[in-house]
């Protein structure tokens, strides 16, 4: 069984001190890069030991997944501090005041820096990460586009441009769509999900679509129709409704979010086994085990313990 780290790994407190100093102008970018490098290298080492295959760099340079938007899109300003879904965690709302255009240089450079720390002799594969288009719609303050669908298609151009630039740097791109199953997404957008995601269908990177925090099953058909290589299911949120999910998994490659990134309670391996068994039984093509959401919501020590639980299943 392959293992995958999805999204962020809790930013170590020690590294945060460097980030604080950098943001207040007390240290320069060189010193920050050095510190990020040390912690990134440590994370990669741990993930290799535990047997992970696809990983992110922990997203240490970004405050949250929404923060990545500011590193890849021109025409977006940082707005007010807003609660991130139903978490006691807050992000800066992107304010869109002009046409969205790609400006991915800073983001690509950051990933290049992370890649340097991948152990040379390992099979670890680095992933890029970005906010998905539906979630951007939900989380931003759009003051420019009259038609939000137009905004979404412009954002897809950014993601295409990004993907082209990432060739040779990363092996995969994961799209975070916590809003995918939210009922607040209007029908005009819902009805075009297939077309929206098809914008990325010809890209060579392995693409995964990750949804989390919601268990509304209404959008399950659209979710599994999206043209991506892997579909990421938040098993923790869907726990009571897995029977409905099983109906869609035949011939699909799945990333199963089996580790709860929002609670410190450790998972039982028996439950993980049961879900994996059922997914296989229902015809899933391949299964990768992962955390269910970015791991910012739990302390680092707990995140490590939880990832170690997944490690028990490597190669199994």
């Amino acid at each position, binding site marked *: 069984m392959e293992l995958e780290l999805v999204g962020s790994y809790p930013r170590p*407190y020690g590294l945060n001190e460097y980030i604080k100093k950098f943001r207040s102008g007390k240290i320069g970018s060189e010193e920050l890069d050095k510190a990020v490098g040390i912690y990134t290298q440590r994370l990669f080492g741990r993930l290799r030991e535990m047997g992970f295959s696809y990983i992110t760099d922990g997203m240490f340079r970004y*405050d*949250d997944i929404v923060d990545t938007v500011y590193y890849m899109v021109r025409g977006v300003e940082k707005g007010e*501090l807003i609660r991130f879904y139903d978490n006691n965690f807050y992000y800066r709302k992107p304010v869109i005041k002009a046409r969205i255009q790609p400006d991915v240089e800073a983001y690509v450079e950051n990933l290049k820096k992370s890649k340097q720390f991948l152990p040379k002799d390992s099979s670890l594969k680095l992933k890029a990460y970005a906010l998905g288009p539906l979630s951007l719609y939900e989380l931003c303050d759009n003051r420019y586009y009259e038609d939000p669908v137009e905004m979404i298609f412009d954002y897809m151009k950014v993601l295409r441009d990004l993907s082209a630039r990432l060739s040779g740097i990363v092996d995969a791109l994961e799209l975070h769509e916590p809003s995918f199953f939210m009922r607040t997404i209007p029908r005009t957008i819902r009805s075009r999900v297939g077309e929206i995601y098809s914008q990325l269908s010809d890209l060579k990177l392995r693409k995964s679509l990750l949804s989390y925090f919601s268990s509304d099953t209404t959008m399950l058909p659209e979710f599994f129709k999206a043209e991506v290589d892997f579909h990421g299911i938040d098993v923790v949120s869907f726990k009571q409704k897995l029977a409905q999910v099983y109906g869609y998994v035949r011939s699909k490659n799945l990333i199963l979010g089996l580790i709860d990134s929002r609670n*410190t*309670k450790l998972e039982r391996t028996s439950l993980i086994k049961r879900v994996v068994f059922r997914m296989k039984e229902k015809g899933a093509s391949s299964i990768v085990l992962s955390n269910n959401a970015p791991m910012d919501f739990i302390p680092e020590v707990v995140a490590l313990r939880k990832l170690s639980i997944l490690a028990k299943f490597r190669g199994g």
Partner: protein
Amino acid sequence: MSELPLLPTTVIGSYPRPKWLRELIRLKRAGRASDEDLNEGMKDAAIVVMRDQMQAGVDVPTDGEVRRDEMVEFFAERLRGFRFYGQVRVWGTAYYRKPAVIGRVEYVKPMLLEEFTHAKSISYTENLKVTITGPYTIAEWSYNEYYKDKRELTMELAKAINAEIRALVSAGARIIQVDEPAIHTHRDEVEWAVEAVNESIKGIGVKVVLHVCYGDYSLIAPYLNQIKVDQVNLALKNYDYRPLKLFRKYKWDREIGVGVIDVHNKRVETAEEVATDIKKVLDYFPVEMVWINPDCGLKLLPREIAYQKLTSMVSGAKIVRSKLSEMQSLKALPTLKPLITR
């Protein structure tokens, strides 16, 4: 009890710790200051904070919650059943120690008594407010590893908070504020969260205030009249007072504490701006039901800015008071007596 003026001014609770106290806390953590040193520092800091509020002219002060690092952490450290695994980021580079419930929650001994008795001994007014984090917010901002569900945990916490409030009332507290900033997080939980708040204030015969801030007020507004508090105070400046319509729609007829100071912005509001804002509020609620406060705790602001903001808040309230006294005769002045029985 001292008389209250029209439009009484108050704080939500927290106030910036003096720099020297922050340094003392750092020394204590590094093992270079004793418990005794820290306790003395905390007491002195409360005096300083109280003095700032007195100079600003705040009618109903607190001790600035100088002893509390964080509003959930403080109580989790003192109740049985919690443990801490480490720091968790809440936004940007800000972290807090989010507790985990690993066993049955039990009230061990009074948690705020020392803080309150000291505050009472140094307060410039009898109209002193004491704040306590509500059961739902403690549950929502903790990891639940023990209870079947969050509701069960919240109800257990409500009993503990009730015991603490009773202890405070026995020690002479006359205004209790229950802080529930998380109460409107999940639409499907608000109804029983309200039950939990009521359980936490059951049998309390002094004035009880509920503080709610930041988030979607439309989730809590329909349930507000079911909450057995005398006053609800809210962050409103941040939303340019738009939610006021909502509270009128649901016919809130008890006291309302109006946030007129943005605590996430270092720009200091002018007294005139505050006065203009208060007048807007008076289009919605009778003046004898309106209290004036910042949107939330002032802790994250530089102390100088926090002080200036309080000064503007009080001056703004005074401008409106003077105009009102010229214009109308009032039926009643604000009171510290409870408006309802619990």
